């Protein structure tokens, strides 16, 4: 009884320690807060947006934001070149960025983690072949290939997600492979084999759950990467198409007005920057907290 109590007491204090470690990591908190803001914006866009993001009002084009001369609370961030409320477009734009990030990571993660698990677990020939595929993939210029394929297939949100997902799996493969190699020869894997678990079951039940830490870090990095790439593609006119309020597209549309109304490119750019910064800080924080030795 007393042994059990001490044990549960220890576990509770370990949990408290872990919580404190999460709570004390500045970058993790800031990153988490920025990310949470973006997620709330995306989920509650219809509630938060003051106006319809697609409603054009040609009489009220390029109105300045509220803090500038001539701005008003009717359009807190002003309006774009078609008189659409900029704040509303910004809020709805967070949906596109997060969708791109999550979709890309889902596809890229599935491919990369599978390859990494196979390469790390089996080693030998399998590892050689998969490492070769990864090397070949790394030699391809991501931006150029993505542009070319989206340009030739035709651009849409789905195509962008698919193309980015099929390109951004290399880091998942590399990190998973390394992590699995480290645990492959540990006792509990041997134990699982001894009790008669099948190889697929060992890979999925024993290996995979023990490499989630490093994978989570890659998830954040590649999400940030995908969001920046989508913005760049949309900016170059070969990504998400108008009238969707992609932040990259908003910057492209505001480009002609850089002389007189620089805020139309400054605002969506700042939003992109904060979101990507948040995701990166969060990822770095998770790495520090889950693997303090690996800094």
């Amino acid at each position: 009884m007393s042994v059990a109590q001490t044990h549960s007491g220890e576990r509770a204090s370990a949990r408290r320690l872990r919580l404190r470690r999460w709570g004390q990591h500045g970058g993790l908190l800031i990153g988490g807060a920025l990310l949470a803001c973006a997620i709330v914006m995306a989920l509650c866009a219809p509630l938060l947006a003051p106006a319809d993001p697609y409603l054009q009002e040609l009489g009220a084009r390029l109105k300045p934001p509220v803090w500038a001369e001539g701005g008003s609370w009717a359009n807190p961030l002003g309006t774009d070149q078609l008189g659409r409320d900029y704040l509303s477009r910004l809020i709805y734009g967070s949906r596109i960025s997060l969708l791109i990030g999550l979709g890309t990571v889902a596809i890229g993660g599935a491919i990369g983690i599978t390859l990494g698990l196979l390469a790390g677990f089996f080693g030998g020939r399998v590892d050689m072949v998969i490492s070769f595929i990864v090397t070949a993939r790394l030699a391809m210029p991501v931006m150029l290939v993505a542009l070319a394929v989206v340009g030739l297939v035709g651009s849409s949100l789905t195509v962008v997600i698919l193309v980015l997902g099929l390109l951004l799996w290399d880091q998942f493969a590399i990190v998973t492979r390394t992590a699995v190699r480290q645990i492959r020869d540990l006792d509990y894997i041997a134990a699982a084999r001894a009790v008669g678990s099948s190889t697929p079951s060992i890979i999925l039940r024993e290996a995979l759950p023990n490499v989630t830490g490093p994978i989570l870090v890659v998830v954040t990095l590649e999400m940030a990467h995908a969001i920046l790439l989508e913005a760049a593609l949309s900016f170059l006119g070969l990504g998400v198409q108008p009238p969707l309020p992609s932040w990259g597209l908003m910057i492209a549309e505001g480009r002609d007005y850089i002389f007189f109304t620089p805020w139309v490119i400054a605002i969506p750019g700042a939003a992109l920057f904060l979101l990507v910064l948040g995701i990166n800080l969060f990822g770095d924080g998770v790495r520090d907290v889950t693997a303090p030795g690996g800094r």
Partner: protein
Amino acid sequence: MARYAMQRFILALAVAVAVSIISFAILRVSTDLAQALAGEAANQEEVEQIRIAYGLDRPLYVQYFAWLGDIARGDFGESYYFREPVAGLILDRLPLTFTLAGMSLLLALIIALPLGVLAALHHNSWIDRLCLGIAVVGQAMPSFWFALMLIFVFAVTLQVVPLSGGDTWQGLILPAVVLAYYATPAIMRLTRAGMIEVLASDYIRTARAKGLSSASILVKHALRNAVMPVVALAAVKFGFLLGGSTIVETVFALDGIGYLSWESIQRADFPVVQSIVLLFSLIFVFLTFASDILNAWVDPRVRV
């Protein structure tokens, strides 16, 4: 060493072949080229005529080997848009893109090396945190947005550099700064990590014990060993900078390969796009090979 170099060379060759197959395949399955060439309005018959005229009716592997054979002879095909050999179009623009990438790399090294060394010397101090901050901010900033902001501040408001164009070297300053900013964090981090490792090693302690001056230890013993991996990384980064030229050249309206690639994609000028993808990939493969050899030459442990 020779054996290691040979192994690396064979690997690089294999990767080059794989890359050529991939770049051929992905662009080919992305679209029906005959249809794209004929245009939306063309009827079925016209599309088929074009398919035969351009040899697109042959099996894919036949087309691939024909393409590879042409490239081996230096024939990269003819641009659908310019009606000129692709090789010439690329060669005309190569100097600009290479100059830009070279300038960026130089700038990145000038910024990253001293900062990395300082951060390592004053481990966990404010300068270390400043370097980390620069890296974190650099990774989060969209390059095209950074470029537009620089244009707004330096070309529109202050008017210290020309708005666009690569005719003068001043026109290359802003594009080089944008590209350099993306190469800086990785180089800085590697310099810092390398210096920290080297400074903690036995031979530095020995040098200190011998009573050598700090400056002499830093430059002769530490920096020389820490900097070689950085040089190797810089080679690889040059490849990345070429890839990044698409965005930067488009924003600054520089008529280099990056801009050509963007325009060609929009015009469905297939031979040009394919050649540029292949060229950038091959350059990257070569640079990776060179950097592997460089690393192995400096650090014999790598060869094992």
